[in-house]
């Protein structure tokens, strides 16, 4: 039996929750030196809904999420949880109030196991008060079974691929059994198959009354999973709607303030002679007998599921981890590429998949990040960098890609995820490669900039650059590629021409 007073209190909480929703944010402002990241924004999340937060790169989405997760403190504004005003002083504080977050920049501890990463601070103990690793592995296995993730709980995180890491993050966030779950671009490294898996988890959580804030740059995800959405532009609140009330173009207009018509401006351009040929490339246990050729002016898509080892092939070609057998021919002559610098000497450029681990120099500024590849081969005289020319080139490229930063001397760590990605693209485009390898080039990039990057890639192809593009986004692969090589578990399972490639055919070959 509940006492009348308790009943009264419960009724009060329910009323307040009804009125404000699960999470209500009002008038939040956050300033960083030189940037107003958030200016008087609001967000209202109801129980049992998926609320998408949309906006261009640098619009302030992650910043607001970090405020809700207790990582940043707002300069002004209020946060209400179930109607109650709260201050979230630290990540621990937020976790204890039932707010869990999947971070855009993966936040896992290398060298520790998957299970240790998930249960850190909440490890099960045995009767001697010591951590029970067996039990912890079991708990992880149970969690993975529930989420249908197939991953060894005892595997070391440092050995996982980006996609696998993302799944660990998802599992960890879910394991908190929180009432609010923030997902900051949880699918940026996942292929459609894993995304579907995640969506069924999300639907399940929604059913159980959890409020989910979902950030993505993939428009189709918005319509598939989100009930409501809020748009930010340049740190300001633009509006909120039910996702059934609007169409794709409305949202894009809200996000960028103008119309973007052509998402994939593919220009058919003349394709020249073969410039790169790969024959029977093999690293035993990783990938086997990879053969394909790439022509000048051609964009070759490399599709496959997570774990199909597409990135490993790219790394082998660029000399990061050279293949143990097989041949690489550039312009018809066999070459040995033992290191990235040897690859660059042959005119290769390689945009890696993991911008945090192998891409950005996070503690350096934008200019230093953009110029780092360029000045290994040119614009240096007698040991001195021809800085004025390089700076100008970098500025032009940054402007073309619409990198959002106060200036090029800003530390890259402070840039939004999508803007970091743009810097890396700028870095490689400046080297004027003959063969450009792109691993997930538009990961975390907003719609406007995405079509800009697609335009740039197509433009390069028109100038005769050969492009090898790995992408987990099928529309991107289909829209951009002249031919598509599909991989399955470390082997080429088929090659499709642009004319007869469809999503279904690719998925068939990818999944076998």
């Amino acid at each position, binding site marked *: 039996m509940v006492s009348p007073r308790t009943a009264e209190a419960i009724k009060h909480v329910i009323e307040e929750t009804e009125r404000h929703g699960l999470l209500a944010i009002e008038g939040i402002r956050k300033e960083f030196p030189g940037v107003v990241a958030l200016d008087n924004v609001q967000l209202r999340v109801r129980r049992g809904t998926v609320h998408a937060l949309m906006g261009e790169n640098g619009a302030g989405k992650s910043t607001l999420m970090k405020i809700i*997760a207790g*990582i940043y403190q707002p300069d002004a504004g209020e946060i209400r949880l179930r109607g109650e005003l709260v201050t979230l002083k*630290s*990540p*621990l504080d937020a*976790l*204890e109030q039932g707010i869990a*977050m999947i*971070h855009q920049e993966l*936040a*896992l*501890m*290398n*060298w*520790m196991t998957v299970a*240790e990463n998930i249960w*850190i*601070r909440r*490890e099960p103990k045995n009767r001697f*008060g*010591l*951590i029970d*690793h067996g039990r912890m592995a079991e708990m992880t296995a149970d969690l993975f079974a529930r989420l*249908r*993730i*197939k*991953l*060894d709980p005892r*595997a*070391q995180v*440092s*050995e*996982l691929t980006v996609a*696998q890491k993302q799944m660990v993050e998802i599992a960890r966030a879910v394991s908190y059994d929180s009432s609010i779950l923030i997902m900051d671009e949880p699918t940026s490294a996942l292929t459609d*198959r*894993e995304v*579907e*898996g995640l*969506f*069924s988890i999300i639907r399940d959580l929604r059913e159980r009354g959890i409020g989910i804030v979902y950030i993505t740059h993939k428009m189709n995800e918005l319509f598939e999973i989100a009930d409501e959405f809020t748009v930010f532009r340049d740190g300001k609140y633009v509006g909120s709607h039910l996702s059934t009330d609007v169409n794709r173009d409305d949202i894009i207009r809200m996000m960028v303030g103008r119309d973007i018509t052509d998402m994939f401006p593919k220009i058919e351009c003349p394709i020249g002679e073969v410039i790169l040929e790969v024959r029977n490339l093999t690293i035993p*246990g*990783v990938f086997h007998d990879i053969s394909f050729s790439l022509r000048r002016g051609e964009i070759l898509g490399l599709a496959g*599921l*997570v*774990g199909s080892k597409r990135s490993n092939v790219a790394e082998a070609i660029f000399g990061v*981890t050279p293949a143990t057998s097989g041949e690489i021919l550039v312009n018809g002559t066999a070459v040995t590429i033992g290191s990235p610098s040897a690859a660059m000497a042959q005119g290769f450029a390689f945009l890696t998949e993991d911008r945090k681990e192998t891409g950005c120099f996070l503690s350096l500024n934008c200019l230093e990040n953009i110029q780092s590849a360029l000045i290994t081969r040119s614009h240096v005289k007698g040991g001195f960098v021809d800085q004025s020319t390089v700076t100008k080139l970098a500025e032009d490229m940054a402007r073309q890609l619409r990198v959002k930063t106060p200036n090029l001397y800003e530390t890259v760590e402070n840039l939004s995820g999508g803007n970091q990605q743009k810097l890396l693209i700028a870095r490689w485009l400046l080297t004027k490669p003959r063969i450009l390898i792109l691993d997930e080039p538009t990961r975390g990039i907003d719609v406007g900039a995405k079509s800009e990057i697609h335009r740039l890639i197509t433009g390069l192809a028109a100038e005769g650059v050969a492009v090898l593009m790995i992408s987990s986004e099928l529309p991107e692969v289909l829209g951009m590629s002249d031919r598509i090589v599909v991989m399955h578990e470390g082997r080429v399972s088929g090659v499709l021409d642009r004319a007869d490639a469809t999503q279904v055919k690719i998925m068939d070959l990818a*999944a076998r």
Partner: protein
Amino acid sequence: MNTITQPVPQLQQTRRRVPPELTILLVLVGISLTFEILGWILQGQSFLGNTQRLSIMILQVSVIGIIAIGVTQVIISDGIDLSSGSIVGATAMIAMSLAQVGTFERALYPGLTDLPVIVPVLAGLLVGVVCGAINGLLIAYSRIPPFIATLGMMVTARGFAKWYTKGQPISFPTDSFAAIGKGLAPVLIFLIVAAIMHVVLRYTRYGKFTYAIGANKQAARVSGIDVERHTVKVYAVAGLLSALAGIVVASRGLTAQAGMGTSYELDAIAMAVIGGVSLSGGRGSILGTMIGMVIFGVIISGFTFLRLDAYYQEMLKGIIIVAAVVADVYRQRKRVKTA
């Protein structure tokens, strides 16, 4: 769309790796055998066959080994501690000054002689914890690099040790204080400390937090770990173990001098690093450090055994430390490549 029946793609199981300790153990075996063979060739006798030599060797490295245990957890948390040797000096002085016998007429504190052994021990340990905690507080809250903070403590603590008696040594401890470092007691103390720390690092939250902070500080923070508070604890424990080493050294030598423990910090770091503790944090184990410690001891006693000039010994020691780290880095790189 119903996705419940849709299988998630099979992600391959990661291979079980050879524990890094095993390769370090092989290095130890290799080095020992080399000395054994050289021994027969150059000296006409066995290196390993002499148990007395081996027990002297273990005794020699045990004291620094105690420090290395503390340093191991500091390095795992992505820090460094340069102050250990000076803390040895400072605590040796303080502990000894409270452990003097009453029959010695020029005792430092004539009113404080013949105290029960617990007094000098606790006083010494307290000084160590305080020094370590100051290191930790500076590093965690004022965000100066560990290298600088502990360098400051290294100089300050040494200065304190010299100031304490204006450079005079302190001697004549009570029998019970002298017993701490007698015979093989230091080895026993080392083994107990190592066993405790092994369990702590592997099976307690303290250990997990230490690895987590070393692996990725930001990730540790967003997991709800109070990184600052834990950092203070880690350095305080390191200070505690340095103090313990200081007490053992003073007791064993029956005297305390301000210069005691000089350059112990570097030897302790070397032991940890030879034992596979990564200077970039997040990796390493007590077992590794213990093997590293024995390698260190074998090298020194091996060189002495071969009657190598002391100057050559030092040069070779330096080269071997670097070689061990190079080998470790190379092994890591190979592993990442094939992963």
